[in-house]
């Protein structure tokens, strides 16, 4: 044994390489360099004589040590990251050898932006990957890879340390992520077969690196502030508009060309709140007692009997300002990692706490991870990767995108209502101004309804080198989640429609998946020219889910310690159920490289799923891809500019099994709600009954997505510039869809049937340029992607229309339709040509919805789509698309000495959004607040540039789904601007630290968009399966926020 030491520097600029691995080849003896690039190592006698230096981004250096004890080594910058090992399905490959469309995410960049969820952080980072998130703390995230492959579920498969999951990733601590690869095309993904139809995201967590234990502490703290609210009316404007629209409604005979012809005959609106039937409404001093003016004896205040006393807010309450506020976010992570020649270890402890900008909403996470690997002997390795996490979310009551959530109430509540009444209790709105609840009260009362989740996620494995080139691996993974929430609803005596009786719902569920896979990998090089790797494997997966929930009402007091089921006296109710599914698979892969020039990669997987009937449960998913490394050819080998160039082409098939668990079975179910009946006439009990609950379809088979990918990777000027380009065509056939069964068959869950075809084509480009000038260096990166989605076939009938959700208030149902020849979830409604300026013009036009006021000046002029000279629901048509023309991301990074500046922006171009909020705020429907736009841009005689029809309170037609709601959803958002400072080494070592990094960051500092809603980042209405049939409908989404964060990272 002897001691060696030395220093590692970069060849080009002589800067020390910090954290480079230095080890003895063929052994586990090694260390990492310190902040000055220095290392020291004890070399045992029985190891090789080769010293290896490896550092990401640099070529691996091997040095024969001889008897030398001191080394001053310079390493060359590698041409890009071509040597980087990329984790693909059930193994790793060198980036140089990859022939499919595999994107690696720069995790350092990715993790620099505070996020709850790793999927959320991927937004804008990778070409071809569209991410949209709910913005609420702990909220949902949508990831769509290369468009929408099916009318069904389009969420990708996540594989974390070899363990597949489709569940939510909130409980995966971002700080633990080492690398992320995205398998975008089928040639890369089909090794995951039936669950890879929408792409695969492979996440690897951090392992220990050779060297002494390294302690790290990373933290950030930030303040988040809301960006934008809706521009709503104050009390005076609100009342003016109310009066105008009521007068127009109640005096139709007087309206000539939109003008009151004889003011002496006007019938004025009779609303006692505003002084009864008078020409100019009077804003009262009190809203309770209704419309009171002057002094009210406030001593008579009483909750029961109800005699609430509430002053009018004559200026108007800014409800958005009341429910949004700046809020802190913080994250702390402690880690320790290292490795010896017998073991590798990495442990971390994380605390994340995001308070929502919406008051009383939050998400917290505590997580503990331990990844270890032990070498039992030269041939056998044992290891585990395990995380246990606890997450706690307080969301907004009734969830995102819901007409009864606080955001909706913030525009639905009239401005005259104050937040509090004269006694300081929450104030309610007068019933004449409709039924909105007080959103501040809603949030306050919901503040203790935390959803609590515990998730155990991890695996243990054994790896054995059976022969020199033959390795066997067996891994058993577990994903166990527990969820609990006690959702309490307190009485709201102030509300126009109070709940009547406080109630509590407690629900619990657990979900358990185990995955066991075994692989056998044989890698061999034959001579200089042939390299190949062959792998075969099996996998078995079992999932089991069970839930129950209970409910009671009539709690004596609302106090927190009393919010348990037993404390309720009535309304006792409970429900529960379970489901399971299983998957058994065999798979294989062959990689072959000839002269490192010609690459072939073939995979095949056979899946059998319990979700299909036995005759149809087996499917085989093959793929093949090839690569040609042009830069190795003679005609390019001497080229100074072209460092590396590779052409790639691939074809493969993947599947989708998201059809529920028991699609093949016809079943009868019982439920008190829909199959019980009080045959005995007791009034307070009912006899149990059963009903057919599911039509089985035993004939359903796998949905198949075939995709072709062609692309190239080129690196120029020794790595200064690189570009990756891909073109793809994905076509899904036998698309599984729960075809609506005609109702004469009865009502039961519609079975999934193999119908339809869908196609996505597009291109993806990613470029990077690295420049350097003295001590100043910079990187410019950009990505760009498109997809074009077309429904090739539904059920064979071009007229068939599958609608999205019809739970919107809009008359005649739905706004999104899926139809042959159009993109998935196209917008559907009337086409508005303009606004009638005169009665005559209106009268000469087709009869609109029976005529009358809809054929008078000031009414919308609808397009007669079918040309029958009548405007009715037959004139609805496809009016827009929620799919963007392209999406892009831009990343800039500047380094000067110890400073680094990173700028990241991301955008979407050419999509339309359906701003459903306008139903509430731009039309005289419910009695809530209205936009300044409606106040200013409603039609009045002579106002030829009006955007909205004449205000008329009984107009229920103009608010039909139409082009009026559509807006350009394009935006560019400056997601991140971050300045980092690495403290100089001499300073750090003086205070005994290994390294110290501090940073300041601004998130979402700027958004460029024409969209007038709260936030243009509205992709999916919600985040469950089936939600892709209604994309881009904004029901008042939780808005994005701006934040300023400060962070530090310390190494000991």
């Amino acid at each position, binding site marked *: 044994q002897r001691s060696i030491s030395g220093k590692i520097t970069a060849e080009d600029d002589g800067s020390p390489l910090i954290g480079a691995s230095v080890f003895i080849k063929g052994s586990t003896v090694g260390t990492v360099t310190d902040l000055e690039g220095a290392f020291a190592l004890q070399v045992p006698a029985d190891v090789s004589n080769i010293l290896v230096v490896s550092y990401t981004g640099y070529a691996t250096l091997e040095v024969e040590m001889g008897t030398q004890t001191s080394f001053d080594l310079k390493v060359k910058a590698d041409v890009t990251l071509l040597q980087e090992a990329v984790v693909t399905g059930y193994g790793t490959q060198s980036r140089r050898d990859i022939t499919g469309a595999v994107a690696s995410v720069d995790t350092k960049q990715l993790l620099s932006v505070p996020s709850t969820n790793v999927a959320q952080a991927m937004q804008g980072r990778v070409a071809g990957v569209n991410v949209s998130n709910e913005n609420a703390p702990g909220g949902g995230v949508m990831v769509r890879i290369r468009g929408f492959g099916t009318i069904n579920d389009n969420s990708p498969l996540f594989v974390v340390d070899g363990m597949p999951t489709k569940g939510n990733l909130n409980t995966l601590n971002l700080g633990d992520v080492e690398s992320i690869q995205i398998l975008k095309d089928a040639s890369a993904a089909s090794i995951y077969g039936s669950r890879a139809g929408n792409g695969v995201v492979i996440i690897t967590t951090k392992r220990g690196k050779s060297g002494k234990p390294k302690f790290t502490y990373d933290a950030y703290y930030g303040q988040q502030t809301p960006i934008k609210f809706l521009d709503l009316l104050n009390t005076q404007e609100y009342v003016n508009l109310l009066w105008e629209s009521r007068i127009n409604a109640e005096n139709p005979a007087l309206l000539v060309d939109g003008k009151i012809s004889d003011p002496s005959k006007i019938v004025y609106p009779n609303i006692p709140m505003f002084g009864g039937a008078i020409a100019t409404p009077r804003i009262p001093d009190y809203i309770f007692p209704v419309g009171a003016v002057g002094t009210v004896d406030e001593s008579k205040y009483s909750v029961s009997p109800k005699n609430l006393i509430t002053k009018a807010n004559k200026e108007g309450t800014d409800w958005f300002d009341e429910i949004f506020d700046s809020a802190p976010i913080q994250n702390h992570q402690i880690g320790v990692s290292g490795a010896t020649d017998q073991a590798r270890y990495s442990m971390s402890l994380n605390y994340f706490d995001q308070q929502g900008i919406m008051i009383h909403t939050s998400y917290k996470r505590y997580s503990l991870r331990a990844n270890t690997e032990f070498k039992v002997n030269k041939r056998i390795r044992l290891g585990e990767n395990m995380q246990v996490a606890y997450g706690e979310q307080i969301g907004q009551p009734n969830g995102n995108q819901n007409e009864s959530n606080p955001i909706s109430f913030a525009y639905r509540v009239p401005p005259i209502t104050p937040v509090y009444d004269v006694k300081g209790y929450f104030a309610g709105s007068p019933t004449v101004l409709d039924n909105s609840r007080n959103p501040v009260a809603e949030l306050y009362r919901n503040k203790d309804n935390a959803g609590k989740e515990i998730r155990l996620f991890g695996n243990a494995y054994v790896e054995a080198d059976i022969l020199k080139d033959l390795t066997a691996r067996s891994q058993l993974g577990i994903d166990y989640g527990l969820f609990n929430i006690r959702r309490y609803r307190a009485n709201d005596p102030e509300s126009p429609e109070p709940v009547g009786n406080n109630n509590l719902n407690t629900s619990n569920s657990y979900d358990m998946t185990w995955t066991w896979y075994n692989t056998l990998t044989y890698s061999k090089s034959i001579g200089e020219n042939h390299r190949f790797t062959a792998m075969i494997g099996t996998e078995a997966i079992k999932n089991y889910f069970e839930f129950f929930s209970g409910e009671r009402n009539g709690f004596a007091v609302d106090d927190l310690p009393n919010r348990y089921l037993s404390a309720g006296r009535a309304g006792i*109710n409970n429900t529960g159920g379970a489901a399971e599914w299983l998957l058994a698979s065999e798979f294989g892969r062959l990689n072959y490289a000839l002269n490192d020039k010609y690459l072939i990669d073939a995979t095949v997987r056979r899946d059998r799923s319990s979700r299909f009937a036995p005759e149809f449960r087996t499917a085989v998913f093959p793929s093949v891809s090839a690569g040609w490394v042009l830069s190795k050819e003679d005609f390019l080998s001497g080229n100074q500019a072209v460092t590396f160039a590779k052409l790639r082409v691939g074809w493969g098939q993947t599947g989708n099994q998201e059809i529920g668990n028991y699609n093949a079975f016809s079943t*009868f179910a019982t439920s*008190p709600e829909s199959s019980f009946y009080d045959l005995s006439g007791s009034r307070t009990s009912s006899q149990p009954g059963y*009903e057919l609950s599911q039509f089985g379809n035993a004939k359903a088979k796998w949905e198949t997505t075939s995709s072709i990918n062609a692309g190239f990777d080129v690196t120029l000027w020794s790595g200064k510039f690189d570009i990756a380009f891909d073109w793809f065509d994905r076509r899904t056939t036998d698309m599984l869809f729960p075809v609506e069964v005609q109702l*004469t068959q009865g*009502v039961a869950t519609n079975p999934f049937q193999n119908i339809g075809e869908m196609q996505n084509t597009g291109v993806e480009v990613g470029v990077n340029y690295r420049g350097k000038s003295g001590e100043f260096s910079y990187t410019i990166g950009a990505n760009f992607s498109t997809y074009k989605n077309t429904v090739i076939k539904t059920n064979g009938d071009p007229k068939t229309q599958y609608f999205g959700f019809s739970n919107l208030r809009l008359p005649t149902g739905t706004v999104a339709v899926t139809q042959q020849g159009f993109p998935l979830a196209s917008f559907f409604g009337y086409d508005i040509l303009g606004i009638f300026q005169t009665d005559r013009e209106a009268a000469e036009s087709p009869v609109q919805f029976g005529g*009358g006021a809809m054929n008078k000046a000031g009414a919308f002029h609808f397009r007669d789509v079918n040309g029958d000279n009548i405007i*009715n629901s037959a004139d609805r048509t496809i009016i827009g698309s929620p799919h963007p023309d392209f999406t892009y991301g831009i990343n800039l990074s500047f380094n000067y000495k110890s400073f680094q500046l990173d700028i990241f922006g991301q955008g979407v171009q050419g999509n339309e959004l359906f701003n459903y909020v306008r139903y509430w705020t731009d039309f005289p429907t419910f009695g809530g607040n209205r936009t300044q736009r409606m106040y200013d841009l409603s039609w009045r005689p002579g106002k030829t540039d009006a955007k909205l029809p004449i205000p008329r309170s*009984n107009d229920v037609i103009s608010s039909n789904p139409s082009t009026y709601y559509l807006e350009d959803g394009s935006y560019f958002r400056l997601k991140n601007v971050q300045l980092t400072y690495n403290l100089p080494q001499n300073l750090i070592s003086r205070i005994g630290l290994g390294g110290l990094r501090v940073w300041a960051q601004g998130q979402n500092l700027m958004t460029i968009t024409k969209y007038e809603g709260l936030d243009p980042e509205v992709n999916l209405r919600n985040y469950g399966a089936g939600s892709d049939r209604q994309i881009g409908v904004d029901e008042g989404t939780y808005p994005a926020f701006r934040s300023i964060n400060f962070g530090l990272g310390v190494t000991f």
Partner: protein
Amino acid sequence: CNEEFLSVTPLGVLSEATLSNAAGVNLVLTGAYSLLDGVQTNVGSAFPDWTGSADNWVYGSVASDDAYKGSNAGDQPEISIIEAYNHTADLTHFRGKWRAVYDGVARSNDVIQLVPKASDLSDVDKNLAIAQARFLRGHYHFEARKMFNKVPYIDDQTYNAADALSTKLPNSTEIWPNIEADLKFAYDNLPNRWAGAPGRATKWAAGATLAKAYLFQGKYAEAKPILENIIANGGYKLVDAYHDNFRAATNNNAESIFEIQHSVNDGAAISNNGNRGATLNYPYGGGALTTCCGFFQPTHNLVNAFKTDADGLPLLSTFNQVDVPGDNSQTYAGSLDPRLDWTIGRDGVPYLDWGIHNPQYIRDRAYAGPFTAKKNSPYRSENGTNTWTGNPRQNANNYRIIRLSHVILWLAECEVEVGSLDKARELVNQIRKRAANPNGVVKLANGNPAGNYVVKEYTAAWTDKAVARQAVRFEQRLEFAMEGHRFFDLVRWGIVDQTINDYLTVEQNKRSYLRGAKFIKGKHEYFPIPSQEILNSAINGVPTLAQNPGY
């Protein structure tokens, strides 16, 4: 892994084989009854509960001259569209009703198909189960027929639960004969009463429904003997107090022939068996027991219909010339039929035991007038017992779909048509006599009647069939107002277009949103077949269902 690893059994549900026994038949039959209320939630439903409601408040009352949608302009605009006869085939409401009745049909057929497989069931019990299921199947089809005119009849030969395409039948054949056959079988095979189970269909319920089906076809001669049989042998009698037909405490009383049973606090979430179909139709505020949602407000025309002349008789032709004021500050000098104040909430009159009806009970008076619905409401004193503890809007006040008063007035119709005018008058007078019971009127706290109530029997003979017909029909309007029958009665009487257009001419001066509304003869008698159902009925791209005329 072998195949055994992959075999699963659905959890928490049953297969048909498990239910193929006596207990199973009863369970599935109960499931078929359970759709009588028209409300179902088994599948994440986009159809609001009231769209299929058994009481047909939208289609039978709002679409007639009895009721407005109510509430305010913006809420549930589809109902406004129906109210103003602008409706099209794609309204969710029609599909919701279609869905409810045909699911009822499917559940009935499930019973009929299951019975032969239940080997432990005696022949007598098999027959009783089939008879109940056929009653239900007839009833559900009857609802479909009166709503949608051209509809398919789905029987147990056609229906196959395992083949999703089995029920794509054309609607080109008249289904009254099938309805009659099912109801006739039930009438011939069901018992007079079920001990302890008033919710089950009886011989008399089947007979009355069969007679009603005849009346819808103008087959008075066929209807008459059945109606007479029910009166003579059914064992029913008019209850003394008219209002006992509209309160939970007197559900299933001596007058009831068939009720849709509502139950509360029975373990169903959101009290789904507690008359969810009427969940919007309660007063809105101002100290009312309920605070939502102010729908289903009576028309001024209906209120005026309750006026009586000095003889205590209705003003058959002139009732709508002067309004009964809705504003509390004015009083109506004339006399009123006391049934008015059991049917309609109006200011100054006690609203059950809730207190005095006041303007705050209404959500938007200027929009939909000063009156509220009353027959479906629960009592404040029964809050928490006959109402759901979570919300009193869900209550156990049964919907009496057929009671003896129906049978009496239907028989009166028959008597008119066969020329027995005195018999008809005597039958109508039975109803009026009960209405006049001084103990059965709404009273103020001091014990005095809440209005100037004068209602008397027809003492003078009716001069001709036309007069008699008008009186009988008017009596049905008063007796069954706001109960979801009016529109369908107007259609079967063949007077719907004139009645509605006359009504609209006047009413549009009170309700501005009705301006321009017009009932089109030959079209609006029936509601359109839901357009999506026509699409979904396609076989190889060709729809099997055809639309009704005019849509």
